[in-house]
């Protein structure tokens, strides 16, 4: 009996070893291979990009186009690597002296990286390729600069408008008309926006919000720039000083807080925390929980993907301003292609960047990301076949003199974090706009001055 069980045990062990060995051999023989075979007679340009999913597919299409055309002609091959945490990884790789040749960062990274001498200036290469300011919408050209030098070129770009749910406006036509408002169009001033919102709001018996006409913090991604629609700015570019106590800025944050006061801070917070995530059918706008929302050009892509039944039931317009005379105000943002300091193939890397900034290529990429073109010249074909039916609105907004770029501040991540914290306190009614803004003014100006002083010391040490 004992001998039998020993034999069975040995047989099982042998079987396990055989199965595992066979699996390993099969995996070796037929398992995954390196995805890309690199051409031997080409300069390999390493390109790190943050996008994944459909956006990555759009970028890869452009990379393939380059490799098959200009790349083949000039013996350059771009190897694209989609990577999470691209900012941190580019930072560490640059510090280690082994950066990628091209990195796809955000425009707000340019001042921070450029101030620390971590990016290659592109002015000369751009001039050599005939890339000049007049080819771009001014706001995007500005976003690629720091301290007068060009440090990147745009890959994809967007600006903000007001998305509104036409169905909800139609359903709330009576209360809207009762206030003298037209349910067939978007509000044109902040006062009108407030009136539309109040006519649409549906609050239940226990004080909870069922549907909100508008909530400044939904999604709240761009609240740091709300002041531009109030004629304010928290950064004085000329004197390089924060101006958080500017009347326009105070007005903007008082307006944000007015919604928390009207709904009640608890109700507003409870409502927002019960909403679904952005890229899901539970998105507040898609679920019909919020009737009007400030969003970027790309939002049409998410509506199409997550709730196709909503197509044709929404519209977009310029986001209204406080002052009726202040028209076509928008905030513009873009992704940029940069060459980190120490990159091995700068000239070849710029060939790729210049290719992306060609009008036909840029429009193809912009359409795949459902964004606008940062270029001044836009083809009718692009506008006619774009996936966002309101692309003309967004395109003309970005070209407007009231299009506002990201502020070129090297300590911008700290500024953003401070402002986000301030807004959270503001909507919880923990602080008044004046108090919070004064606190930020003092703290951030000190941090900025300290940063600039350290950079000055470094320059002196180098001399």
């Amino acid at each position, binding site marked *: 009996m004992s001998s039998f069980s020993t034999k069975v045990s040995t047989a099982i062990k042998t079987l396990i070893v055989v199965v595992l060995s066979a699996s390993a051999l099969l995996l070796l023989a037929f398992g995954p291979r390196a995805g890309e075979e690199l051409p031997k007679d080409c300069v390999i340009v390493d390109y790190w990009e943050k996008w994944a999913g459909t956006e990555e597919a759009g970028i890869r299409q452009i990379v393939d186009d380059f490799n098959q055309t200009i790349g083949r002609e000039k013996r350059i091959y771009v190897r694209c690597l989609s990577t999470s945490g691209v900012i941190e990884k580019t*930072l560490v790789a640059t510090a280690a002296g082994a950066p990628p040749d091209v990195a796809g960062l955000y425009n707000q990274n340019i001042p921070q990286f450029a101030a*620390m001498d971590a990016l290659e200036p592109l002015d000369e290469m751009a001039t050599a390729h005939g890339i000049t300011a007049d080819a771009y919408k001014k706001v995007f050209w500005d976003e690629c600069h720091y301290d007068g030098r060009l440090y990147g070129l745009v890959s994809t770009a967007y600006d903000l408008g007001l998305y509104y749910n036409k169905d909800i406006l139609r359903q709330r036509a009576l209360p809207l008309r009762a206030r003298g408002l037209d349910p067939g169009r978007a509000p044109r001033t902040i006062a009108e926006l407030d009136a539309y919102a109040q006519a649409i709001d549906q609050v239940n018996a226990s004080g909870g919000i069922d549907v909100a006409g508008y909530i400044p913090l939904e999604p709240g991604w761009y609240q740091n720039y709300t002041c531009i629609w109030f004629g304010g700015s928290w950064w004085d570019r000329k004197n390089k000083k924060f101006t958080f106590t500017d009347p326009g800025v105070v007005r903007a944050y008082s307006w944000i807080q007015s919604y928390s006061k009207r709904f009640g801070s608890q109700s507003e917070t*409870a409502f*927002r*925390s019960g909403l679904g995530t952005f890229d899901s059918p*539970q998105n507040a706008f898609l679920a019909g929980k919020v009737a009007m929302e400030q969003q970027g050009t790309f939002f049409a892509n998410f509506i199409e993907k997550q709730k196709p039944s909503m197509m044709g039931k929404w519209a977009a317009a310029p986001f209204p301003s406080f002052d009726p005379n202040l028209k076509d105000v928008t905030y513009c943002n873009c992704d940029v292609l940069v060459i980190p300091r120490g990159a091995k193939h700068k000239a070849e890397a710029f060939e790729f960047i210049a290719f992306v900034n060609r009008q036909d290529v840029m429009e193809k990429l912009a359409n795949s990301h459902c964004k606008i073109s940062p270029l001044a010249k836009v083809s009718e074909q692009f506008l006619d076949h774009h996936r966002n039916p309101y692309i003309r609105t967004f395109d003309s907004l970005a070209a407007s003199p009231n299009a506002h770029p990201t502020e070129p501040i090297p300590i911008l*991540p700290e500024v953003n974090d401070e402002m986000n914290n301030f807004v*959270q306190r503001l909507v919880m009614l*923990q602080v008044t706009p004046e108090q919070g803004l004064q606190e930020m003014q003092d703290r951030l100006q000190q941090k900025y001055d300290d940063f600039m002083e350290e950079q000055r010391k470094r320059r002196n040490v180098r001399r």
Partner: protein
Amino acid sequence: MTKFRHEAWALVRGLAFLSPWLTGFLVFTVVPVCLSLYYSFCDYSLLQPPLFKGLANYRMLWHDPVFRKVLGNTVVYGLLALPLGMLAALGVAMLLNSKIRGVSIYRTIVFLPSLVPAVASAMLWLWLFNSKLGLINTTLNALGVANPPGWLSDVRWAMPALVLMSFWGIGNSVVIYLAGLQDVPRELYEAAEIDGASSLRQVWHVTLPSISPVIFFNLIMGIIGTLQVFATPFIMTGGGPARSTYFFTMYLYDNAFTYLKMGYASAIAWIQLLMVLALTALAAWSSKRWVHYQGR
């Protein structure tokens, strides 16, 4: 002489065998730790060479309101999560130590959440805590609670929510407690029973002293773990609302990789290390009074 040469040769051979680990330890632990100490006295962004500035980083920390905030949050989290977590783990371990049918299945169930990656757990709990659609508030609503908390969005409830979630990962501690409980000599309980000790007294006078080294171990690991809490709040709250769940390690990370202030982040790291050392030393000192080792 021969003996000396023999021992020297043995030492060389020993070091040669150790060298892969030793090299890794020196290159990837000792050197970075020493460098971080130096950087804590510098202005260093990683992208530019370090610029020595003496104690300036430590002085700035002293006056930094955000640092005070994260310090306070971390201490509060530690004071809540550590004792409650230890109590919960010990209680569950005691239950799992009883002779009931299917105990191994229960043990597996308790341990399973520890195997779930932190990101997956965080995503799961994000849904559980959702104020409208979440299972917790749906249950509270069904039980008649009219306005259940907005767990992660309410400044008063975000910290308790994270503490509650920390119980999800007690499986590791439970297994260690369980091993300790199974090591308690049976005869001690028999003796206590003969002496007329109730179950509660048996726990107090037999179980707890017997497993005190295990409790001590879990305490030390818990101190280190709670002072370094990062992934869960980083994913679930990002430190909000209004920095109410912004912890030490998150501020360190932000300074290092978002603000590119490696010198300042290094100073925070050294303060954190000193705090861990001080609390561990305090626990070790106090252990003389309450930790009992068998055979001593």
